[in-house]
Structure formats: structure tokens, C-alpha cells
């Protein structure tokens, strides 16, 4: 495999790749947004992806999930050893990929309870188990069960609903599109703790897109990368990367990476 990012941790790499994105070029409405993205996620590891607004982070998440408007022009996506570049959203979901959207759509007449049952693979006439009810209660969503999905939900309510649906899907790979934006502190703590709990228990992997480092307080991420102007940079310690971005900005942060690769030790 060409141009595989080499990790700087130096540990022996024994884990298998769960997701490999290979030289991926993606366009939206005929405009190229991503130019040759490479990424490899290993089973049981979590990645954080930083990047300014409009850098293409959501585009990458949507392209990995297979949302048709995010057109793969060239390159390849491999999930659990299978080339899924041409597979449908439904297929990818069934294989164990799941996304928590930043802006999930409102659907009139489709209740939150319908969505949760769908995620659990249950018939819409069947009931939730006691354990499921407890989790719904834990996510403070019991009162929302009969509400139309996302209609009139606040930022925090949307996020809680997205993450709970995702956990109910029992995915092997979770894609989180800005789980920490537009969320109150309490909801952020709740969802982050639950995500980490799920990841720990299931051994699944996560790719987390974020602006902020807050979520790193709760979720153990192994590497961070920066997406800038459609190009992926830097694979390093998430907290260090975040501190550098905060201190010097994205450009400076990736400059450091470039200096390292060219042998200009700082």
C-alpha cells in the first residue's frame, strides 16, 4: 500500500486496520473538496481530526459513510478488509459503520422511539427492554420518545439522540461529526462518557471530528491529525496537537510536521 502514514509512537503494529482511506478525492456538486486523503485507523484505536471550518472534515466523514452527494472521484475506502468505495449507505451501516451527524434532518411523523427501534433492529410495535429503557433514561431522552425525530430538539438533545442511536446500532466503527459543537457542558460530559464506555466495552474504533479539545478529556484518542484545505497533515499525540493549534494556529501546527519530515529539527 502506498504512502501509508507511519506512526510516530514506535510501538509494534500488530492490530489490523479497520478503516483505510487511500488517496481519496471527493467532490460535492462538482467542486473538489478533498484532494487525495490517506488515513488508516486500527481496530480498537480512536482518532481525532482537527481542522478549521470548511476544511473538509464533514465531507470526509460523509464520504466514508457513503452519502451519495459526497462523490468519490478517485481513491479507495477499505472497511474491515473489504473495498466499500461503491457500497451503499445501508451496506456500510450493516457492516458495522455508524455516524452521528452534526446536523441530522428533522423527519415529521417519525418518532425518536421509531428511530431507536430501527437502530436496535426491532419491530416498531415491540417494546424496549429494561436495559434499553435505562440507557434511554440515562441519556435523558425518555420524554422525547414520542416526539418527531429532531423536530424542535435543542443542540444537546440532538447530540444525545444521535449518540444513543449510534450505541444502539452496536457499530464497529463510529464516525462522530463534531460531537462537541452546540452542546451544553452537561450533555457533552454525558455523551463523551457514554461513547468512551461503549468504545471500551466493544473494542470498536472511532474517528472524531472536532474543533475543540474538550472531548479529549473523556475519550482516549491515540492520534490526532489535521485536515487543512482538503489535505491531511500530522499524526501525533492529540493533546499536543491541540495545544499547538491553540497556541499557534493550524498553519503553524502543520509547519512543525513539515519541518520534522524534512529533517529540520526544531
Amino acid at each position: 500500500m502506498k504512502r501509508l502514514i507511519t506512526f510516530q509512537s514506535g510501538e509494534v503494529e500488530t492490530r489490523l486496520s479497520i478503516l483505510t482511506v487511500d488517496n481519496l478525492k471527493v467532490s460535492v456538486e462538482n467542486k473538489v473538496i478533498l484532494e487525495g486523503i490517506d488515513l488508516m485507523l486500527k481496530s480498537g484505536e480512536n482518532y481525532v481530526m482537527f481542522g478549521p471550518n470548511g476544511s473538509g472534515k464533514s465531507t470526509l466523514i460523509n464520504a466514508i459513510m457513503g452519502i451519495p452527494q459526497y462523490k468519490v472521484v478517485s481513491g479507495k475506502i477499505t472497511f474491515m478488509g473489504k473495498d466499500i468505495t461503491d457500497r451503499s449507505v445501508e451496506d456500510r451501516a450493516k457492516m458495522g459503520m455508524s455516524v452521528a451527524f452534526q446536523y441530522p434532518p428533522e423527519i415529521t411523523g417519525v418518532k425518536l422511539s421509531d428511530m431507536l427501534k430501527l437502530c436496535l433492529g426491532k419491530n416498531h410495535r415491540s417494546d424496549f427492554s429494561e436495559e434499553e429503557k435505562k440507557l434511554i433514561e440515562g441519556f435523558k431522552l425518555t420524554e422525547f420518545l414520542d416526539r418527531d425525530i429532531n423536530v424542535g430538539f435543542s443542540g444537546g438533545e440532538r447530540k444525545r439522540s444521535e449518540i444513543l442511536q449510534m450505541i444502539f446500532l452496536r457499530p464497529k466503527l463510529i464516525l462522530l461529526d463534531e460531537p462537541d459543537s452546540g452542546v451544553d457542558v452537561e450533555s457533552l460530559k454525558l455523551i463523551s462518557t457514554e461513547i468512551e464506555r461503549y468504545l471500551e466495552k466493544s473494542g470498536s474504533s472511532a474517528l472524531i471530528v472536532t474543533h475543540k479539545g474538550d472531548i479529549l478529556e473523556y475519550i482516549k484518542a491515540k492520534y490526532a491529525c489535521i485536515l487543512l484545505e482538503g489535505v491531511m497533515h500530522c499524526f501525533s499525540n492529540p493533546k499536543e496537537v491541540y495545544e499547538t493549534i491553540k497556541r499557534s494556529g493550524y498553519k503553524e501546527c502543520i509547519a512543525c510536521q513539515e519541518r520534522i519530515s524534512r529533517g529540520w529539527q526544531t
Partner: protein
Amino acid sequence: MTSIPHQILEGTSAVGIDLGDEKRSATFLHVDQSTIFSKVGEFFKGKLELMDTKDALQKYPWLKDYMWKLVDKNKDEFTKRVAEDYSGGYFMRILPGEEVVFPLQSCLMITKEKLEQRVHNIILAEEGSKAHIITSCVQHFNVAKAAHLGISEIYVKKDATFNFTMVHSWSEETTVRPRTGVLVEDKGTFVSNYICVRPVKDVQMYPVAYCNGEDSRVSFNSILYGSKNSSLDIGSKAILNGKGSRAEMISRAIGREKAKVIVRGMIEGNNPDCKGHLECRGLIIDEDSLVQSIPELIARKRGVEITHEAAVGKISEKEIEYLMTRKIPRDQAISMIIRGFMDVSIMGLPKALSDEVNRIVDLVAESS
């Protein structure tokens, strides 16, 4: 009960009308041109009256003062034909202060080909009464080229609440022309829920509610599912004459398989203190159908406040894909969105009734 032909019983159960259930409050069955079955369940005796309009006119001479007051005899050829000659219909009266919380069922059927059924219904919701009525117009499935002309005049008196749910199930060959007028007095509330989810040749109706009373309220809700060449032209009109009167209209229209669905709505504000809102959403499923929304808002006084929102178009791809990320195939996602679109919770029905209506809509959704 045993005198009712088996075919007719089958026809009625198909739209959720169960004639065998004693607890079902009141039942009225008008087949072709005659009333063959009318009864009020034991539990509801003393709360409401139900009989054939012609019998009611004999019993209550004053009833003639309620005939042709809210619908103009000379409005069109259909009203003229019913005025000339009609075969009956139902007279329903909710007695003062009584509450009827279970559905009342009236059922008008056509079993003969080329038959023109002409009925005249009168409903009196007396002072302080509260009622939820479900009514169905059913017909035997093999009947072709039939027509139903129905005049309905509904009087909602002071402090009364009358919630009227109609589930229509016509054959693909039937022409349907209901003509309805409603009068709402002081603090009265009239709610009309109209559900038409099976194919029908041609329905055209434009019921009008006159909110003459102070603080009178009217709501028109409709769920229209046009399929298989159906032509639905469904309107609702509210005339706000009373001080503090309010009107609300919510409609959901779906067009597929060469159906033509026109949704009209008119709110006319004639009092300086009146308000109205109209909401229409339409979904078009294929390239051969038509969904048209025609809202009209009229203000004749300063202080009138009437608004509307309307949207017609295809099912949002984003919604379909969202559901697909939850492991369901595209087709199933689409039917889930359509089913959701026909959500009867917009009608604010009591649970027993909304379960009933949901079951009917489910049957249609699953078969399409």
C-alpha cells in the same frame, strides 16, 4: 344484525367500522337509498340521538329550520339534485351538556352500479356538549360508476365541542360530492379531520365553517393520499366573523401513480379580533402526478392576523439517507417517511380513535 348482508359487513370492517360491538356508542348504516340499520348503544342512551333525517323531520317539526341554512340549495347542480330528491341521511344530536368520548360511527354505502346516492345529514351539537365522531363512507368494492352526493349541515352551539373525523373509502369508479356547512356559536369548537387514503375516481369538496360566535374555534385537518389516477380536490374554508374567533388548517397531501391532488384553503377574517393559520405540505412521489396547494388569506378589518406556510416537493434525500445509516434499505426508508408524513397526531384525537385511524392508514401504507 343477521339481516345485513355479509358483503356489506365485510365492506364496513375494511375501514374500521365494527357493527358488532355494542360498546361502540352509536351506529348508522345507510345502504344505497335507504337506512337499514340505526341504533344507539345502551351506554349512550340519553346522551345522543341518531335517526334517519326523514324520520327526524317527522318527529321534530322544528328541524326543518335547520335544513338548507348552511348550504345553499342552489349552489351547484349537486346541491340542486339533493334538494329535488334525497333518500334520507342521518340526523345526529348530542344532547346538552353530554360528553361522548367514544366514536360514533355512521356508514354510507353504495352497492349498486351507476347509483347516485343522495343524502342530507344534520348534526346538532347542543350547548355544552362534547363529542368525537368518526364517520365513514364505504362502498362495496365491485361497484362502478356510482356517485355520492351528500349534504351535511353541522351546528355547534354555545360552549360545545364537536370533533368530526371522516374516513373515506370509495371505489376507484366513484364520483364524490360532499357539500358541508358548519356554524360555530359562542365559545364553540369545531374540528374536522378528513382522511382519504384509498383510490377514488373523483372527490371535490370545499366545506365551509362560519365562526360567528365570540371566541369560536375551527380546525380543519386533512390527510390525503392520492394514488391510482385519483382526483382529489379538497378545500376548507373558515369565515371568521366572531370576536376572538380562530381558525387553523393543517393538511398533508401525497400524490403518486398519476394522481391529481389539489389542496385549497381559505381563511377570511371579517372581525378586527380574529386569527388564522394555514399549513399545507405536499409530497410528490413520481413524475406522473400533481400536488397543488392553493392557500387564500383574506383580511377585511385592521387587526386581522392570518398566516400560512406551504411546501410541496419530493421526499428529501437527506431524510432517506439518514434512515439508511440506520441499516434499512432505501425503499423501506421511503415508506417510513411517507407513513410518518401521514401522521394522524396532527389531529389531536383521543387514543382509541387515533389508534383506529392509524390502523387504517397502516393498512394502506403497507399495501402500497
